[in-house]
């Protein structure tokens, strides 16, 4: 009789997830329900203060800014990534384009953000170019506002959106489009009603790969964000730990981010399952 080793094979993975994900999240979860220590740390008394603080108008405003920036970045990323993925999948030089998409990863993330400072800065390349062309008299301040944050976030996570889209579009049977046209669909209609539903899982992956990291962004708003309207939850957490020394509140905020991203993942799993069911029904 053959023994089933399946569960043993998953042990390293289970160990890894427990040690580096579950345990830290549980500690953060626990801390969020404790009293703050006066000089940082926690006092072991149960308290809901951290969650009560979340009802303050300031916090809700910061949450609003964070949602605005991350949702808009995600939408823009998808809008750019879809045609890119489509073009790549239909192109004859697929591997070249794949390589080009991966190139930015060869440089450190922070250095690429600093590069954006050099491009968009008041004395940066873009302003110099526009002034030399005589289009503007004085510099335009591109950097240090919420739009700069959105631009750099879109730039940063674009490859993560293009890759899953490319791989699903590549598997898409393009003769279906021709069939749709034969049956009288206009060109846009064939794309919208035949292609988009078929590459749905790729779209959902792209959205998640962009939304999850942008929702918890810290470095980008810190470096290219500005005086107001670009202070995000990630920055709030850092402030609460380093300046205000309110660990429970920082923990509670972190739990909120984890919950939102987990909900997004749940939606993904649910969408995939219902897609699979729909496919099954079709077959029957």
């Amino acid at each position: 009789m053959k023994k089933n080793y399946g569960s043993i094979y998953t042990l390293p993975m289970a160990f890894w997830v427990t040690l580096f994900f579950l345990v830290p999240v549980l500690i953060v979860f626990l801390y969020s329900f404790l009293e703050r220590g006066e000089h940082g740390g926690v006092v072991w008394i149960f308290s809901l203060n951290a969650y009560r603080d979340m009802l303050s108008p300031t916090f809700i405003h910061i949450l609003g800014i964070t949602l605005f920036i991350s949702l808009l970045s995600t939408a823009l990323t998808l809008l750019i990534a879809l045609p890119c993925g489509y073009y790549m999948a239909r192109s004859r030089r697929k591997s070249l384009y794949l390589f080009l998409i991966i190139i930015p990863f060869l440089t450190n993330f922070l250095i690429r953000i600093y590069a954006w400072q050099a491009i968009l800065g008041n004395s940066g390349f873009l302003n110099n170019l526009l002034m030399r062309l005589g289009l503007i008299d004085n510099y335009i301040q591109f950097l240090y506002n919420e739009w700069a944050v959105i631009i750099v976030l879109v730039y940063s996570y674009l490859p993560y959106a293009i890759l899953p889209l490319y791989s699903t579009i590549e598997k898409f049977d393009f003769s279906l489009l021709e069939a749709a046209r034969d049956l009288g669909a206009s060109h846009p209609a064939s794309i919208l009603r035949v292609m988009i539903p078929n590459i749905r899982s790729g779209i959902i992956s792209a959205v998640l790969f962009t939304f999850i990291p942008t929702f918890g962004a810290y470095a980008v708003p810190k470096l290219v964000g500005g005086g107001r309207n670009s202070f995000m939850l990630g920055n709030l957490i850092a402030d609460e730990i380093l300046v205000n020394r309110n660990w429970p509140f920082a923990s509670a905020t972190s739990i909120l981010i984890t919950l939102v991203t987990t909900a997004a993942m749940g939606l993904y799993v649910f969408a995939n399952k219902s897609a699979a069911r729909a496919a099954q029904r079709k077959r029957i």
Partner: protein
Amino acid sequence: MKKIPVWGLLLAVVIVAGGCSKESEKLNFYNWVTYIPDDVRQDFETETGIEIVLEEFASNEEMYAKLKAGGAGYDVTIPSGDFVSIMIREGMLEKIDMSRVPNFKHLDPEFLAKIEFDPGNQYSVPFFAGAAGITVNTRQVPDFEKSWKIFYREDLRGRMTMLDDMREVMGDALKFLGYSVNTRNPEELEQAKKVVGDWRDRIVKFDAETFGPAFARGEFWVVQGYVENVFTELEESMAENAEFFIPEEGGPMYLDSMVILKGAKNIDAAYRFINFIQRPDINARIADFLTIPSLNLEARKLMKEQTAYSYEDLKRCEFKEDLGKDVELYDEIWHEIRIGM
């Protein structure tokens, strides 16, 4: 802070390792990153035969967390004033026997009188004090008043930055209004919030990381921050066109003090070290290295370098105290400022 070149560190390691062969007295010293020049440390070691075992921290919070966790075994460290008061309250410090620090007498009595976190210096011996100020690019901004008013200037909109540090910026606004940087009065804080709000709308951003290089590139013309964070980035030609000042209204300042930790094993070495640091010639060398004024009256006479600001400038400033839980008053206002409320 200046960066010590790697070879300097290596050299120090070799020298320290070389001294290890014979069983010598030790001092476990927990210091800020690059706060004491290497040659001063070596002179202490050759003079006294006491070996300094050095570890470094980058923030008070980091130092405090490590000491709180226990078992670090340090003898001497250099917290800022607010943390000295916390550590006294928590019983983490050894009382200082001033008869063993004869050089204490050189310290400026006028300055010592301002110390409220440890009145009468029962637990701490001042090391150095300093304050953030404003650096101006004089080529782009030839005319300016040495006042916080500069952040109201419309013509400099988009060319100015302030520190991403709520105690500093709120403290500046409070001083500008003539209040204490440690106020807990909601009325005064509300006024300060309005002032900082007006500044926020004219500055580019609150930034504690990149303003130095950006000033050096000519991107920003007026930056508020610590002098060493700007001038270490400047080439000589640029440094000629940069002027640092502490505004006439004053601002918050810090004082880092040497303390002996409870349970220190090398008490004798600790006293000799603290006394050594306040020896006028040694203190003058450290002040020259840091380019900030010395608190040691005798050392002031021996200094060779021109400091970025004078002791007189510091007189206008006020120590930041630990606010305990009241720090939340500032925190809330600061976040409201940051989101434009």
